[in-house]
């Protein structure tokens, strides 16, 4: 009975050990070969099997936030215009339409001329514009004021979908620049609207950052001006442009005042800081109609091309989708000689008058450099981000810095482990061997577990490993000290071992489960690095129950069975 039990245990341990070792140092996805056993082969397989985190391998880690409040703001403004148009379309008089967007509340407010017609206006607006309870705008009215407020629930759903959409667009852009093996994921809690992007091997993320940060919101708009052949109406300052509207310094919902830079870009990479001063000098202001004739969503393609053969100036040619082309064609046909502007990121990039009906082709001129024209075309193709993004975290680790961290970490761990092993062998002698075997097995199986779950090894993960190894040593110390106590109290060796394991097991379970419970809390409440810590810890502790208790026990059983029933000495 006992013999059979021992055999069974040995087989289980044997299988687990072999499988564990194979997972850690064996080749995955191909047949093993003798060369896998050479030091070089082991090293290569190890490097392939264990995924190192960016802090150890090198690369860039970016956390960005989608500014959903900007998204709500734009949406509210668009809805205010739509509401006004809807009311006017039904022949009802609206004194003023405005979008209130302060303090996290988004509200479309209509000031009506005749309060008696409130219900009529409400019906007209809800029929035409996207404003109703069904889509998350709750209605209220008092006197001559009608208002629709975006509910909290609707805010959450909209923000969620805006973040998802932004993530898709970012993915397209990342793939277009050719970053290898990027990781793109939602980051933080439900309401944080954050996106995590990890790019292994990228050491200078500036270019990628600029590319992703471009909202690339393209609009084709009607510029308020006398028609050609008079030149387009521009103003020297924002105030002057606003004054031209004769609306008491306020800009009505169906107009916008935008900056217009005639020569916005100089050739060269370093467009940001240096050219600001130059652009400032040439900055003018124009008044445009809102909403835009069409926007970037209608874009079918966008490519960068040279403005003139041989020149170092580029422009962007774009083509429109069917629906957009129809709208655009109708508008241009009806507005010959009117001025049209191309607006990019809320700045007018070029103004031209309509010579004849245009359907689906257009250009954005403006002396782009090759790089910026390429980037712009790429971002236009991927679609506009629903809202601007801002960077919250940027961590870049060069490969040599990561390698240094690994080297010093490994060196320290090896020294620490050697000290532990030496002590166990000296203090517990024969049984120390037992502990050392359990400890090494623990490390191998923990690695195997990390590989199976596809977890990445990071610095905090290594901290989790250190705690695990500490607790693995502790388990052995607990068991051995308990066996010694039982021996001192005069028990026979087999029963001392039995009692020692049984008693220590209760303690080991308690300590392990406590730590696992708190790790689950860490996993639930923590992000990135803290989760990595929790995962390695839980994994290591589960493995430890096997290696420190089951395996160690089996070795003792094996020792006893070799010595027979009447053992007189135990090396402990």
């Amino acid at each position, binding site marked *: 009975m006992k013999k059979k039990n021992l055999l069974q245990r040995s087989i289980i341990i044997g299988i687990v050990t072999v499988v564990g070792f194979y997972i850690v140092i064996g080749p995955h996805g191909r047949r093993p070969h003798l060369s896998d056993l050479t030091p070089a082969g082991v090293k290569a397989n190890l490097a392939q099997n264990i995924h190192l985190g960016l802090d150890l391998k090198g690369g860039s880690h970016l956390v960005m936030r989608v500014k959903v409040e900007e998204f709500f703001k734009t949406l509210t403004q668009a809805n205010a215009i739509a509401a006004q148009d809807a009311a006017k379309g039904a022949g009802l008089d609206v004194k003023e339409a405005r979008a209130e967007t302060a303090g996290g509340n988004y509200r479309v407010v209509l000031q009506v001329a005749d309060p008696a017609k409130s219900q009529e206006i409400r019906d007209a607006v809800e029929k035409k514009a996207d404003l109703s309870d069904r889509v998350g705008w709750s209605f209220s009215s008092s006197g001559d004021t009608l208002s629709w407020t975006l509910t909290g629930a609707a805010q959450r759903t909209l923000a969620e979908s805006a973040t998802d959409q932004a993530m898709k667009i970012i993915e397209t852009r990342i793939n277009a620049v050719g970053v290898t093996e990027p990781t793109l994921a939602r980051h933080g809690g439900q309401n944080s609207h954050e996106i995590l992007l990890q790019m292994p091997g990228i050491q200078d993320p500036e270019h990628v950052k600029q590319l992703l940060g471009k909202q690339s919101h393209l609009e084709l708009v009607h510029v308020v001006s006398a028609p050609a052949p008079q030149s387009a109406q521009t103003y020297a300052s924002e105030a002057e442009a606003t004054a031209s509207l004769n609306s008491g310094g306020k800009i009505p919902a169906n107009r916008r005042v935008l900056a217009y830079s005639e020569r916005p870009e100089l050739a060269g990479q370093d467009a940001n800081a240096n050219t600001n001063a130059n652009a400032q000098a040439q900055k003018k202001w124009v008044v445009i109609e809102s909403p835009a004739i069409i926007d970037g969503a209608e874009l079918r393609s966008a490519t960068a091309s040279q403005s003139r053969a041989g020149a170092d100036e580029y422009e962007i040619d774009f083509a429109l989708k069917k629906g957009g082309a129809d709208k655009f064609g109708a508008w241009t046909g009806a507005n010959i000689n009117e001025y049209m502007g191309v607006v990019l990121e809320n700045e007018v990039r070029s103004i031209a008058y309509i010579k004849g009906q245009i359907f689906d082709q257009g250009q954005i001129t403006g002396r782009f450099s090759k790089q910026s024209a390429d980037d712009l075309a790429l971002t236009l193709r991927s679609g506009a981000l629903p809202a601007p993004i801002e*960077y919250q975290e940027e961590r870049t680790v060069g490969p040599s810095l990561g390698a240094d961290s690994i080297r010093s970490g490994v060196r320290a761990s090896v020294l620490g482990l050697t000290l532990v092993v030496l002590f166990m062998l*000296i203090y517990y002698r024969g049984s120390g061997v037992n502990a050392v075997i359990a400890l090494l097995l623990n490390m191998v199986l923990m690695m195997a577990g990390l590989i199976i779950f596809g977890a990445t090894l990071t610095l905090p993960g290594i901290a989790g490993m250190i705690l695990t190894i500490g607790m693995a040593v502790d388990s052995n110390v607990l068991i051995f000290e308990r066996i010694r106590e039982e021996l001192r109290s005069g028990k026979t060796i087999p029963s001392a071992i039995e009692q020692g394991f049984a008693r220590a097991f209760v303690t080991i379970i308690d300590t392990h489960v406590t*730590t696992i419970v708190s790790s689950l809390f860490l996993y639930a409440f923590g992000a990135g690095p803290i989760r990595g810590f929790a995962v390695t810890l839980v994994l290591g502790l589960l493995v430890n129950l096997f290696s420190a208790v089951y395996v160690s026990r089996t070795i003792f059983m094996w020792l006893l069975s070799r010595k027979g029933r009447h053992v007189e000495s135990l090396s402990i």
Partner: protein
Amino acid sequence: MFQLFKDVKIDWLGKRRFFIGISIVLMLAGMGTAFYRHKFHPNGTEAFNLGVDFKGGTVITARFKQAPSPETIRAAIHSAGLSDATIQPVLDKPGEFLIKVPHQGFEASETQENQAGVDAARSKVKKALDSFGPEAEATRSLEEDSKATYKIEGTDAVGQVASKQLRNQAIAVTIAALVGMLLFIAFRFEWTYGAAAVIAVFHTVLVTLGLFSIFQIEINLTVIAALLTLVGFDVNDSIVIFDRIRENRKLYRRMSLYDVTNLSINQTLSRTVITSGLVFLSVVALVILGGETLRPFSLALLMGIIFGTYDTIAVAGPIMVWWEKRIAAANKVPAANVRENNLKSGRGAARGDRARDGVGKPSQAA
């Protein structure tokens, strides 16, 4: 058998005033320093030396082929408009510098958009460092690129929003972990045990943070990992002793809780010393060989191991005994009634036993 401790009979609980005194002094010193720094900013220091993870800002690791003096680097960076930057040579790696730019340094010069987000400090630092010569190409190391004089090896930039989130999260996560432990220990033992263990852990965390304030060691994300690790070690220690107390209370029903606790601490003393000693040795190895990046982490672990071992004996034990005594005293009368009426429902009987033990006079440990 080679044995560390044989039949020790130390009256640990008898020294509780001394131990708790030490703990209070340590906590007061740490918290006092933190408060003083927070209030008066001696030499521009703050309560805690928070790293970019929790304060926001940028840290750039740059390596030079021929190291210029920190003063010349500082001058170059100041002239690039980053006046608050600090330059710190990495001690164990010649030619390597950490350039730290706090948020306030460039906030004013950036646009509204960038203020809350991550900055352009990297490109400014790069521009400043380019005055020493070109940077190595992104795909090549410093040694491979013969024309290069330096290379930016790492950047850590955290915006103010993100750093605040990280800070809140670190606190929330630590508290959540403690609550989880409290619940589980209360479930497995008694809630007084859980409370005592958690108070002891809390004490270790406070003392460690206090030392970080006194010595102005930088607190970053890895320090949080270290604090979580030492929370684990500390509770582990407490549970080993509580477990023994639970076992001994069944064995020695006539012994007072006071004596049982002393006995249990003494019985597990070898284990406590061996385990903590081994972990201590490994952590010392990490402090010495672990390198600059891991230093705050390994120092936090080192302090945590020392105080975690100490407080299991000095704080968790006494608090638990004191608390149980108070409960026992409060329950004495009702418990006695229960026994007189011979209603030996399990819980009432257990309380009654404890009441009798709890008020027993301390005697020599068996």
